[in-house]
């Protein structure tokens, strides 16, 4: 085919019962790259993945995946992709090995080849021991790894991962990220959705931010960070009263709120003049701010600025981040 793009979509539109879920989404994902679709709950991430994975028909727009049209040639597409959804596609009462062998048979491998492939994948995902046990006995992290292994049985060239690390504890998440990074290194194209900025930052070559069915930004992590705000001024207050006052003063302008650390973050260009002005503006009496720091913007800041979900999302985002650092 000579197609340099693994995924190419234009103008994807989808509504469910009159509610517009996708309002014209364009995507271009180069072959062999890791692409993250980042967005809050209900942004349309899962719908996008399901359209690209041929499981849902878009109301409008076109998409080609692995060189084939997802509507006209969906069987060709299916032969080249795999989808790992938010809910594990595994049978709890079958063993890990049986699950993989079944997927192998359904990928039209011979009985022997299916067994070999199962053993190979169990080894690769460090599940050889667990492979003999029923999946019902697995931890969430093992289950997710097995699910991912199951999606690889037929050697797909494009892998869709819908919120792969949701519900995992920090060590399992780290391990899963390593697995995904290894997959990407082996040359397959990975398309993942996530609510975690850290995840997108860690794994993806390119990131698209989806909000309410619209793509609001696209680029590398660095580009996105530059695009929104170069720096962030973190103001640390001496006590909760001062913190409340300062955060109320900045209100929607605050891109970072940390009640535990009594810190409020606002965008800045980092110049001395602006930092001084911000300090004076927020704390004319010179008693509300004890300390300040200027730091590079995180993807959280980017996300919040782009999607306009400020405080509560900022808070949730940071709690999540803190929880899995």
């Amino acid at each position, binding site marked *: 085919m000579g197609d340099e793009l693994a995924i190419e979509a234009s103008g994807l539109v989808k509504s469910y019962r009159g509610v517009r879920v996708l309002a014209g989404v364009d995507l271009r994902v180069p072959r062999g790259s890791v692409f993250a679709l980042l967005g809050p709950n209900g942004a349309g991430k899962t719908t996008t993945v*399901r359209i690209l*994975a*041929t*499981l*849902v*028909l878009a109301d409008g727009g076109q998409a080609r995946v692995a060189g084939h049209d997802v*509507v006209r040639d*969906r*069987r060709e597409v*299916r*032969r080249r*992709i*795999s*989808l790992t*959804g*938010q*809910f*594990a*596609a*595994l*049978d709890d*009462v*079958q063993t890990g090995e*049986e699950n993989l062998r*079944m*997927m192998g*048979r*359904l*990928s*039209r491998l011979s009985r022997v080849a299916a067994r070999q492939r199962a053993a190979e994948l169990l080894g690769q995902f460090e599940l050889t021991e667990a492979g003999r046990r*029923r999946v019902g006995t697995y931890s969430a992290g093992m289950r997710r790894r097995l699910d991912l292994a*199951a*999606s690889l049985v*037929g050697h797909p060239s494009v892998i869709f991962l819908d919120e792969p690390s949701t519900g995992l504890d920090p060590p399992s998440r780290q391990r899963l990220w390593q697995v995904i990074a290894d997959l990407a290194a082996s040359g397959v194209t990975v398309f993942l959705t996530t609510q975690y900025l850290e995840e997108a930052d860690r794994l993806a070559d390119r990131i698209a931010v989806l909000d309410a069915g619209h793509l609001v930004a696209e680029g590398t992590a660095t580009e996105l960070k530059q695009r929104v705000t170069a720096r962030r001024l973190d103001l640390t207050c001496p006590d909760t009263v001062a913190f409340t006052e300062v955060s109320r003063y900045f209100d929607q302008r605050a891109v970072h709120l940390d009640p535990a650390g009594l810190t409020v973050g606002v965008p800045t260009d980092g110049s001395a003049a602006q930092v001084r002005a911000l300090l004076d503006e927020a704390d004319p009496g010179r008693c509300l701010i004890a300390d300040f720091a200027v730091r590079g913007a995180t993807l959280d800041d980017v996300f919040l600025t782009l999607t306009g979900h400020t405080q509560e999302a900022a808070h949730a985002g940071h709690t999540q981040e803190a929880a899995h650092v």
Partner: protein
Amino acid sequence: MPDTLRRPHMSDAMTMAGRSLRLSARSPEALLTALFLPIMLMVVFVYLFGGAVDIGTRYVDYVVPGVLLLCAVTGAGTTAVTVCQDMAGGIIDRFRSLDVPGTSVLAGHVTASLLRNVISTALVTAVAFGIGFRPHSSVAAFAAALGVLLLFVAAVSWLAAAFGLAVSAPEAANSAMFVLMFFCYASSAFVPVRTMPWWLRGFARNQPATPVTETIRGLLLHQPADVRLGTAVAWCLGIMAVSVAICALLYRRRTA
């Protein structure tokens, strides 16, 4: 996008059937339903109700075909539940993204249902012999009776698959099977239709469970007058055809 029911790939259907069998073999509930419930029901009918039923022949001979039918219907409950679970969980998306046709998924469930029923039928028949069941007929008639029974199981299994596709909760899928059990009870499977109240007789005489039971019973007990092979087979094929069509429709809708 909606997946149509394509011609199944045989090895897919076999893989799916193997999976369904493994799932039911490892689910104590399904095992109990498929194997022990029919036996318990037969014992209940023969020993508890049987004494009160006076029909001229030995009640155990009369009731075994009916128990086999009931067995098919309770077994189909498992099929409805597993189909429903598959559709509700993430696994159907995995199957679809592996390009496994819906027909294979459903045919796998139906095949497994048939095999489960072969086992439960054998078990029930063995226990029936133990408690005095004595059919007297030719090998050909025996084979014909088995054939009709399996056709009935296949029909009910496709119907159960349709139930499983129609409802969203496995519990609901299971309770739908009680409707089918009612068909078994309100037929000549356990008591002769003439003993029923007048308003029920017309229904009981003309609903599918009656000709199917009577055909199997007639074949096993060598009572040619009872055998309505054409009617029984027509009912089974009719139910199966309608159920497959409903399955195709529902599967398309569920995957839209």
